[in-house]
């Protein structure tokens, strides 16, 4: 395996997971910023685990890499510069940027501020959420991994749209997101400076978040009704994790069993999904604190007394199920390996 863009937080998580994967060998990791430096200079948690040095991505993208699969954790707008030549080589690719997630070329100027230079490739990359489209992912050689907020939202909402008994208003999906600081990436700015970041509950994108596009695109596959999602994203005082609080509006009163059935119908046997709606203990609903370091997505719900609203709660580690873990799960499927290989570790607690 190889990793393009290996020095960021997502790249670091990919390398960490690949180093302990029983069937994977990490052949290269690239970084223009850390070229010729040891991987553990960018990711000090990996000291002693690898002596690999970063290479420059331009040299890899221009040759045929001797690997089965390449991950790209390059930033949006950069992946699209390097991957088209790799596609020509026939190597399998899992891209973690947004550059191949959206299928409508017109969406790129609107949401990402650039005109897509290779619209002919967009349909060839399957947006991979294995819990929802495993069969499709198994047959492709090019995949994209969704954004962290998108995957949390899609996993929480899709089963309820599929339910025949629940009449969800797909045109009014309201999503409140609380995100840890690692979601901002590894490059510092004034906004991420400790004195400015510590202790915040900062509404950094109350409307118009980019992940709206992929959420609406993917959820439209689960209903014939027009999907409209309204996202509000907040930076909160944690390093990892996302909690998505999703407000779904329904006309009729809903029984808890209908919601349980919808989730069980979609997720029974899906190892990384845990349904959390407990009557006991401190953690009765999903909490990012209980998924840190793991590929689990915890999903729970509560019903508005008297009807009208379902509140869905989804917690993931933004760097694992929200990025590197989902990508590694995708790799396992694309290579015909057990889906959970290298991803079996339990979440840390306490953190």
């Amino acid at each position, binding site marked *: 395996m190889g990793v393009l863009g290996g020095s960021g937080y997502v790249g670091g998580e990919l390398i960490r997971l690949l180093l302990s994967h029983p069937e994977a060998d990490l052949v290269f990791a690239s970084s223009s910023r850390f070229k010729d430096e040891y991987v553990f200079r960018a990711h000090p948690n990996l000291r002693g685990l690898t002596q690999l040095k970063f290479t420059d991505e331009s040299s890899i993208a221009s040759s045929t890499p001797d690997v089965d699969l390449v991950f790209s954790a390059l930033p949006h707008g950069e992946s699209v510069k390097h991957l088209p030549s790799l596609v020509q080589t026939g190597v399998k690719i899992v891209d973690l940027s947004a550059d191949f997630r959206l299928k409508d070329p017109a969406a790129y100027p609107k949401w990402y501020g650039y005109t897509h230079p290779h619209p002919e490739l967009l349909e060839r990359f399957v947006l991979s959420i294995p819990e929802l489209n495993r069969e499709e992912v198994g047959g492709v050689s090019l995949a994209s991994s969704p954004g962290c907020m998108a995957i949390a939202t899609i996993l929480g909402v899709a089963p309820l749209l599929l339910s025949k008994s629940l009449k969800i208003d797909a045109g009014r999906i309201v999503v409140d997101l609380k995100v840890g600081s690692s979601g901002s990436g590894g490059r510092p700015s004034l906004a991420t400076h400790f004195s400015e970041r510590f202790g915040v509950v900062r509404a950094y994108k109350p409307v118009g978040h980019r992940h709206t596009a992929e959420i609406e695109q993917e959820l439209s596959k689960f209903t014939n009704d027009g999907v409209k999602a309204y996202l509000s994203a907040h930076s909160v005082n944690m390093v990892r994790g996302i909690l998505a609080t999703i407000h779904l509006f329904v006309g009729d009163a809903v029984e*808890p*069993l209908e919601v*349980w*059935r919808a989730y*069980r119908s979609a997720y029974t046997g899906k190892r990384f999904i845990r*349904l959390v*709606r*407990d*009557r*006991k*203990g401190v953690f*009765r609903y999903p909490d990012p604190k209980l998924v840190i370091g793991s590929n689990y997505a915890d999903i729970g719900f509560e019903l508005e007394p008297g009807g009208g609203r379902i509140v869905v709660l989804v917690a993931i580690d933004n760097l694992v199920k929200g990025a590197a873990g989902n990508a590694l799960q995708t790799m396992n499927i694309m290579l015909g390996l057990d889906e959970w290989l290298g991803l079996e570790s339990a979440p840390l607690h306490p953190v």
Partner: protein
Amino acid sequence: MEAVCSECEAKISVPDDAIVGEIVECAECGTEHEVAGITEVGVTLKKAEAVKEDWGE
């Protein structure tokens, strides 16, 4: 013995030596059930009365 949780429809494992009145808990949703009857066909449960968290203070 196995029973089904009336709250979430998860399977509940009931010990073979359970007796009527015994409390069993759903591992999935935490709901407590009281063993209401045991026959050769199986076990029937009813929701156990929950202790309220509001102590009247």
